Structure formats: C-alpha cells, structure tokens
C-alpha cells in the first residue's frame, strides 16, 4: 500500500512535467512518431519490392531445376561399359554428345517425392523449333508440359488470355502460344501453325490458346504443348524429359534437398539461388538499405529525445533539488524522468504505427504499371511492426536514461545554496 502511493506521486510529477510544457512533449513524441513510422514504411516498402520481385521471378523459375546440360558434357559412355583401366580413343567427340536429356523421369521423380519438403514437381520437354505460318518463319522453342503440375507451379492457366490452359489435356495437336509470337506470326485462336524441329521433324498444330506472361522474352518465342505430344513429336518414350522442376514449401531449403538427393540423382541440380544470384543479392541489398535507413532515422529521433530530455532536466534542476530536499531519493528522480521518457516512447510508438500504416497505404495507391504491378508494392510483416515498437521505445528509454541518471545524481545543496 505504502509503496504504491510512492509510485503514484512519481507518476504524477512526471505527468505534470509532460503536460506543463506541451510543445516540448509534442516535439519529443513527434520525433519518435517520425522514426517509427519511417521504419515501418521503409521496411514494408522494401518487403513489397522484394515480394513483387520474387513473384515476378518465381512465375517462371522453379526452386530447383534438374537437367542434363553442361555439367555432364564430358560424359564418356565407354567408361560405363568397360573397366576404368581400358584404353580407348574417341574420334570426333561431337558425335557422342547427345546425352542431354533425362531418360528415367519416373525414377528421378520418385526419389524426389520421398522428400517431405517438396510441394510440387513437374517435368518438361523443351526443344527448339521454327514456327511457320504462311510465309513467316520464326525461331523459338516449344515447352512440352505436364498440364496440371505446370499450372500448379507457375499459375499458367491464369496467364492464358484467350482459350483455356486445360484444353492442352484434351487436344493432342493443340498449342498455346506466346502473345507476341502469335502477333508476329499473324496467328489467331484456332489458326494452324507448323513447327519444324532441328532434327527436321515437321508437324502441324492448331492454336487453342494465347498466353501472356510478365516476361517479354517468353511471350516472343515460346509455345506450350502437352508433354506426351512433345514426346511423340520427338519419337521419345513416356520416361523422357529435358527438365524436372521442383518447388519447395520453403524455398530457402534448396541446399538441403540437393544434399539429400544428390547421390540418387545423377543429373545436374540447379537451385534458384545459383540460377539467380542477382535476385538474391538485390533483395539482400535492399534489406540492408532498409535497415540502415531505419536505424539512421531512429538514431536521429533518439538524439532529439536525448536533447529534449536534457533540456527539460536543465530547466528543472532547481525543482529536482527541491524534491530531493523534501526527501525524494535518487531513484525517485530516475523513476520520474524515465516515466516521462517511456510515455513519450509509447505515445510516439503508437502514433508512429498509425502514421506508418497511413504512409504505406498511401504509397500503395500510387500507380506503377510495370511488369505485372499496378501500384507501388507494400507488404506488411508483423515482425517489422514489433521491431519498430521495440526499437522506438528502446531508443526513447536509452535516450531518456542518460539525462535521467544525471538528474538523479544532482546534489541538492549545490543547487539550493546557489
């Protein structure tokens, strides 16, 4: 009971201090408000940019891509069939370089499916072709896809602007073509197009859909067909593909999956981090900038609070001495000024949150029609709000503590004697 009354008087003195110099208190609170709101805005904006960038990137990038290119270029069929000590001589090595594809798709996929981290797997059979329509002839590529899993991984169906993605399942000679490629070839829905592979195989397809992705290069050169049709065109069996694409629940666990399956899968496994190092670097750099800027803002806000608290204490030095003369202890004085700092921190933090969300949602309305975006991106993370509050209040308390400690050490006789 007695203790409680003591605390109340300290709080009361703090609140009289805060309310008697309203503008000073307001300036201190505004400092925190500004720091916290900028912290929230900067981080939400950077998160938005990162997320937009990722969405864009992962709309055609799998977390892990398995193929048989480059890495096994020096594959030597002789060593598979003969003991290692066998002497051999290969002439004109180019002739035996055709081992570029995955011949045991089912086996590879069954190895991968045992990994619980994997959310989705799809196989592709990609090859280069000439598209021919009337007198026009354009170099491009065909992607033979597993219709359902491809859609699940990249949301392909939502990018089809004319026709239906699922029709690839029903129309064996149907093809969904990139928007720009269709325009360049003068193709419309249900038109026919001829493709010619590098091996000289020619086949007619009918356009059952037109697709528009956020990547210009794809829209200009690619068409999609059913993977089974692709195998037929190339004369390959059901177990044949060129790429196996894997998505994970947590895309940061790619290294773990690669490590787990490396021994069972003989092909090259490329993680998205390796394939898109600039993506990773850019998002990390943006995060560093966001953190640096927000800390600079909080530091400035903290310095402002420090100054104001110092000013207050210098102004009140006589009153502090009187309080001490009347029997208030050093820790009461510390308590009074820390209470002031905490109230400034709390009020500044709360208004900072509101202002931060306000600024962010305004920025979120600014039109920005580039690469699939419509407005400037904002993405709120709970952790940013929590750390903004924590840092805001911490800064205030640290900035308030130093002057408060000084105040608590004031020797009343020195002041009162004059």
């Amino acid at each position: 009971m007695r203790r409680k009354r003591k605390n109340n008087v300290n709080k009361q003195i703090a609140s009289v201090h805060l309310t008697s110099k309203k503008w000073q208190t307001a300036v201190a609170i505004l400092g925190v408000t500004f720091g916290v709101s900028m912290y929230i805005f900067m981080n939400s904006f950077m998160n938005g940019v990162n997320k937009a960038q990722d969405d864009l990137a992962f709309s055609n990038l799998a977390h892990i891509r398995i193929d048989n290119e480059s890495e096994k270029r020096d594959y030597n069929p002789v060593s598979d069939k003969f003991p290692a000590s066998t002497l051999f001589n290969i002439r004109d090595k180019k002739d035996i370089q055709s081992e570029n594809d995955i011949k045991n798709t089912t086996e590879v996929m069954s190895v991968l499916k045992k990994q619980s981290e994997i959310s989705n797997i799809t196989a592709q059979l990609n090859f280069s072709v000439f598209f021919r329509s009337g007198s026009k002839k354009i170099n491009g590529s065909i992607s033979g896809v597993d219709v359902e899993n491809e859609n699940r991984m990249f949301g392909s169906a939502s990018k089809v602007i004319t026709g239906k993605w699922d029709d690839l399942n029903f129309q064996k000679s149907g093809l969904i073509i990139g928007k720009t490629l269709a325009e360049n070839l003068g193709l419309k829905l249900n038109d026919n197009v001829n493709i010619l592979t590098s091996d000289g195989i020619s086949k007619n397809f009918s356009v059952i859909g037109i697709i528009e992705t956020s990547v210009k290069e794809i829209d200009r050169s690619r068409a999609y067909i059913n993977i089974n049709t692709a195998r037929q065109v190339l004369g390959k069996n059901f177990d044949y593909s060129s790429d196996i694409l894997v998505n994970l629940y947590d895309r940061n666990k790619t290294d773990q999956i690669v490590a787990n399956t490396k021994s069972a899968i003989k092909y090259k496994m490329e993680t998205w981090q390796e394939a898109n190092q600039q993506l990773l670097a850019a998002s990390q750099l943006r995060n560093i900038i966001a953190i640096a800027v927000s800390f600079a803002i909080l530091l400035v806000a903290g310095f402002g609070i420090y100054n104001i608290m110092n000013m207050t204490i210098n102004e009140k030095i006589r009153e502090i001495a009187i309080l001490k003369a009347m029997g208030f202890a050093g820790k009461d004085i510390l308590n009074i000024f820390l209470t002031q700092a905490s109230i400034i921190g709390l009020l500044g933090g709360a208004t900072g949150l509101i202002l931060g969300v306000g600024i962010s949602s305004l920025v979120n309305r600014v039109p920005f029609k580039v690469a699939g975006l419509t407005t400037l991106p904002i993405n709120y993370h709970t952790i940013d709000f929590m750390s903004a509050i924590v840092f805001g209040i911490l800064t205030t308390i640290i900035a308030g503590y130093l002057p408060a400690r000084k105040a608590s050490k004031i020797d009343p006789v020195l002041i009162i004697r004059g």
Partner: protein
Amino acid sequence: MKTDHDHTKALEVKNVVKYFHDPSTFQVLKGVSFDVQKGEFLSIIGKSGSGKSTLLYVLSTMDTDYEGTLSVNGHLLTGQAQNTLSTFRNEHIGFVFQFHYLLPEFTALENVMLPAKKLGRFSLEEIEHNAYESLRLLDLEDQAMKSANKLSGGQQQRVAIARALINSPSVIMGDEPTGNLDSKNSLAVQDIFRNLAHEFGQTIICVTHDNDFARNTDRTIEMADGLIV
C-alpha cells in the same frame, strides 16, 4: 543507528567543521557544537556570511561534506547513505529555505501535499485534508488552487512553511522563514512555531536577522565567523 544519548535531545551537533574549496580552501564552520532539546524553539543569529545557512544545510542532512557528527532524535546521521538520509528527511525534518523554493508548475496545495505523498503514510483524502489545514493555518486557503509561480513572495514563503509542516516532522528548520513577510504575518508564523514546539513537542530551529523574532524564541545562539559565541 540508535545511540545511547539523552532521549530528550532532538539534535546533537559535535565539533562540526566545514570547508569550501572554491575559489580557495576556506574554513566556514570552525568546530560548532551545541544541543537542542525536544520541543525547543531555537533561533540562530549572526552577521551575514558568518555561516548560519551553511550550518543549517549540515543540520538538514542535505550537506554531508563536513567533519564532526550530527545526531537527530538519537540517530547518528553522519556517514549515512544518501538514500537513508532522504528517507529520514522526508519523515523527520521539515525545511524552509532562505529562498522559498516551490515547484512552480504545481498548485500551492499540491506543493504542500508532495512530501506527504512521498511519505505515503496517509490516504490521498487525509493528505489533502491535512494540506488544507496547514494552508488555513497560514491564512492561504483561498490560494490553494493557484499555481505556485502566480503567488506573491510572502505567499510563496508561507506555502513553503505549510509544506514543511505537512508530515508533522519532529524537527523543523527555517532559514529566515519570515524574511519576506510583513510584521503581521511574521508574528503569525512565530506563533505557529511556538505552538508547535510547546503543544506538540516539535523542535524548531530558525536562522533570523529579526531581533524581535529571536526574542520570541526559547533560546538564541549567535554565530560569528564560523563559531558559536
């Protein structure tokens, strides 16, 4: 910290020596010794600069930088920690400064209530009641709600006296507590002090330049050049 001294003594001052070091080292108090009985109304007089205020700050426990010993109500206070001393002051010592220091942002009533709130012995209602009583005693009840910086000098001094009385301290010290008052108010304060000493056994020690005031007290000690004469 209870000492085996005479229990009728409110204050025991033994051989107090104090130096100031700024601008040059100089002995202000040169071995001051005296006792004050409980319920005694004592005045200290002396020329300006003789060390009266300096002595009073030592007696008030605020100044701890001295040689010699000080006991209040049998408690040896010399050498105690600052926190112990501030708690002791809050409960046992009321002080009226030479320059009446109030908290300017608080009302007269709040200024009087603060030491009692800090002590926390009574409920807020009781404290407010007591504070009003103190203010009424000093003819200030109509000024209770004014903030301290809007009061006249004499009114401020009386508020400071009311504040010194609020916790019913066993020792009340005043450094020219009536210096700013007209003779009527000065006499009123002297009556209050004498009454507190004689009816309630509180000990009063006042520094004064006013010979009438000094004559009105039980005993007067005179200081000259850092010594009691």
